[in-house]
């Protein structure tokens, strides 16, 4: 592809955007490490060698590895057959089912957490299936008796929630491989001795073909489970991942002359966590390259038609999974209308609107829901306004550099721009607190501070959406536009801008949704200041002592509002995707 001369150079503004994006990713966390170094007098590397002496650090590392591994194994065990079945056959309402399978991944973590809590309550669906956290009955009792593990409940609940959250990753990576696999491969293999039995076909076709995609999804599943925060905070409160430990201690870190041992612990744990996450991302990148090599492909619609309707057991399996995936979300809504009150030594449940009334009025001395929702939408809107043009400029710069043949430079800049992806949300929050607020205390009164971590977290997604969108634009449009007497703005619009409307809308809606549900970074920032977003409000209210029985329904009402708002924003994304499909742009 050759670019029109008017688009062939990288303008200064795009270079500045690249610089700004790299600075955004690098500086807060670098400043945080420098601050912690200055306060403790110990370098990050030295702190790393002392990490085993920090209270709770080794337990957190062990727990993170254990729950990450268990979550990954279970996600693969359930996700691969699900993706295979979903990718192979002709399903009714395919788009809708795909959207529903994708839903958990974009659900705000705090909503998922309280949704699972509702499911685990004595009235809840999971409790009735035998998930009794006390291990006095059902599956938990069985597990407890067989394993000798006294309280497996919270751990199992956390792993189940992680599987729920990450199944969509399996669908996202594995389903397209199954759906687009050239059927000739399977047919030809069936004629050979090595492909006569199911086991042989599994060994010689499916494992080699699906392996790389599964490994990519498994690595990301491990990554997200390892850095889990909101779900651990609520479902396994007696344990800590390294992420939740940092979330607990991060607010205290970086103050000169006060609780220096906490600053030292945060420095060591943050350094270790960063190194581990970087290693995981490098691994995921390697698997992703292998994955892209095996994508030989065939038309999906024809493939599905060839295999026809799914067999009944698979229909039950896929549809049943979708119902289970929706269960925590439905539970949130139901729990917002239920209250459990005590009468003497017993307790009873009844229907109520009190939770909604309190959520609306902010009766529990929190901000009213409208104010929190306005804050959330403001932060999300500003994050989009900043991230979209910056993301476009970076993507345009990367595409131009590649077309100029400077692929190595483009690769280096691309990696640097993706740096926030190698940091968890709490690490980004730590960058804000110890990196920005500790150095610049005046920022405590800056009302839009949470926008900064949100921009950092969503920018990589914008860039990832924009790069292929720019690459897809036919250079002929630029050639034709250049023949017309157009101003530079009009030329840009006709050659490029008008083709990016749909991807930009999709990027904007995804950013809005991620920003509205963002919890880890804001949690840490809010620990030291007052920036109440809706997801933080849910956490604040749910954390209140529940002597008053209406506290929990109020938290659930707030969670319902957050969930519905996020889904409305995401529906814009689905509409844009459908429009693009219809118009083939």
């Amino acid at each position, binding site marked *: 592809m050759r670019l029109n001369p008017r688009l062939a150079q*990288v303008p*200064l503004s795009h*270079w*500045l955007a*690249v*610089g700004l994006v*790299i*600075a955004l990713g*690098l*500086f807060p966390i670098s*400043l945080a490490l420098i*601050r912690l170094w*200055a*306060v403790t007098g110990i370098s990050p590397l030295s702190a790393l060698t002392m990490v085993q002496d920090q*209270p709770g650090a080794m337990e957190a590392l062990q727990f993170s590895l254990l729950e990450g591994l268990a979550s990954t194994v279970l996600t693969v065990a359930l996700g691969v057959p699900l993706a295979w079945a979903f990718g192979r056959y002709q399903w009714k309402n395919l788009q809708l089912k795909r959207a529903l399978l994708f839903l958990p991944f974009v659900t705000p973590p705090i909503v998922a957490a309280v949704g699972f*809590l*509702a499911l*685990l*309550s*004595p009235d809840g669906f999971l409790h009735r299936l035998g998930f009794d*956290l006390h291990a006095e009955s059902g599956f938990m009792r069985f597990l407890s008796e067989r394993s000798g593990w006294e*309280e497996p*409940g*919270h751990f199992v609940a956390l792993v189940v929630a992680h599987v729920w959250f990450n199944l969509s990753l399996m669908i996202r990576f594995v389903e397209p491989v199954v759906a687009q696999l050239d059927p000739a491969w399977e047919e030809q293999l069936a004629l050979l001795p090595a492909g006569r039995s199911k086991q042989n076909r599994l060994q010689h076709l499916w494992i080699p073909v699906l392996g790389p995609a599964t490994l990519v999804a498994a690595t990301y599943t491990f990554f997200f489970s390892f850095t889990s925060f909101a779900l651990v905070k609520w479902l396994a*409160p*007696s344990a800590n991942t390294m992420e939740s430990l940092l979330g607990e*201690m991060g*607010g*205290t870190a970086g*103050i*000169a*002359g*006060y*609780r220096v*041992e906490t600053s030292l612990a945060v420095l060591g744990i943050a350094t270790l966590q960063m190194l581990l996450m970087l290693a995981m991302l490098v691994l995921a990148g390697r698997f992703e390259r292998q994955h892209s090599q095996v994508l030989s492909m065939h038309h999906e619609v024809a493939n599905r038609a060839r295999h026809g309707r799914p067999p009944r057991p698979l229909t039950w399996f896929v549809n049943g999974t979708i119902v289970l995936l929706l269960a925590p979300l439905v539970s949130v809504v139901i729990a917002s209308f239920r209250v*459990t009150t*005590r*009468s*003497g*030594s017993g307790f009873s449940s009844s229907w109520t609107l009190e939770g909604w009334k309190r959520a609306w009025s902010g009766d529990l*001395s*929190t901000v009213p829901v409208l104010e929190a929702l306005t804050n959330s939408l403001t932060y999300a809107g500003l994050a989009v306004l900043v991230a979209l043009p910056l993301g476009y400029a970076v993507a345009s710069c990367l595409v131009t550099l590649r077309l100029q043949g400077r692929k190595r430079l483009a690769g280096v800049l691309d990696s640097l721009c993706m740096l926030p992806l190698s940091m968890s949300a709490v690490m980004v929050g730590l960058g804000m607190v110890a990196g920005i*607020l*500790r*150095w610049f*205390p*005046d920022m*405590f*009164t800056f009302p839009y501070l949470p926008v900064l971590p949100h921009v950092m977290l969503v920018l990589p997604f914008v860039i990832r959406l924009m790069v292929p969108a720019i690459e897809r634009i036919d250079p002929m449009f630029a050639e034709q536009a250049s023949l017309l007497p157009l101003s530079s703005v009009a030329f840009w619009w006709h050659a490029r801008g008008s083709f990016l409307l749909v991807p930009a809308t999709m990027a904007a809606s995804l950013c809005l949704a991620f920003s509205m549900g963002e919890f880890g970074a804001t949690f840490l920032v809010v*620990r*030291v*200041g*007052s920036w109440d977003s809706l997801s933080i409000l849910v956490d*604040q209210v749910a954390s*209140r*002592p*529940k*002597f008053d*029985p209406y506290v*929990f329904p109020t938290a659930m009402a707030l969670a319902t509002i957050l969930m519905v708002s996020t889904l409305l924003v995401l529906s814009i994304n689905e509409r844009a995707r459908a429009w693009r499909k219809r118009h083939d742009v």
Partner: protein
Amino acid sequence: MKRNLVMMLLVLAAPLSGCLEPIEPITADADGGCELLEPGRESDGVLRLLTYDIAAFSESMLGEFTNQTGYDIELIRTDDAGGILEQLLQTQQAQQADLAIGLDNTYLQTALNFCLLQPHTANVSGIATEALQPYDGPLAVPFDQGDVCLNYDETRVDGTNLTVPTSLWNLTEPAWVGQVAFPSPVTSSPGRAFMSATVDYFEHDDDETTNAFDWWRAMADNDAIFTTGWTEAYEIHYSGGYGEWVEGHLGDAAMTVSYCHSPGVEAFYGGNWTKSTSLTLPRASFHQVEYAGVINGAAEVTAANAFIEYLLSESVNRNMPENNLMKSVLNGATFPGTDGYAHHTDVPSLNAEISNERIADEMEDWIERWTEATQ
């Protein structure tokens, strides 16, 4: 190209300029004296309260203050009392708030040592002696109080399965293996208060060869449950409280740290019924007082003083038990008799006697020793 790269490097380097010098904190002189700092911001008629998630500050309560005085209020909420101290320390030379509300007597002296508060001029007559006992100086005013002590489930500590302890050492016996949940003093205010009480308790017991941290080590060896905050200990682990009808409850602990009036609150919301009660061994409880203080470097000092008076007014402070689940600091204040609130509230015969100054001087060391003992 080179020019562009230079520009990019300049953008990358800009945020680092001028921020590599750590801000050194201001501390009180040997006599405890502090200089009055310049306001950290311009006065704008808005009173900014730095507080944690205090349940007593409803919209209507704050609105009433605005109606009475004409000052608008803006809340800056942190996570807890520790969060208030941390933000005060961090913004010491450019304070953004005017009034700190919620520092307790385990944090107050540290705030005073760092010159974070200035003398108030509010009329605060009518405060009970017990509330003024930990601190009665001009820099902070008590606004609520409560005794932190062990709570236990009467249905489990029934004299048959478990007997009511007569000494904290009883809790290290085999019968109590895994039965006690403690919020960590590192991350929880009640946890910090109770740990301070144990220091005093074991300094006054008959055994001079052991101290509080020997007991904490023995508790850890006896599989005591340690949690991050009060909520996890009380709601998830404690079987005697409201937690048993809350999602995620385990109920594996028959005893935990809470307030001596927590059983009263349980009864108040539970139709005059509770199975929780307090263990009020002498010196094994801690009288916690929460304070309001005008911030050194505040811009709205007059409004801050007016708010202190409002907070201590009869109409606001007498309602602390219902609104903030803590006791009022006014003379003659009691817990309400409604639904067994007062009836189920226990009053310790002797709280731990440990000065604020000692807490400030030794807390870091205690936390280090506690961590070492319980790891």
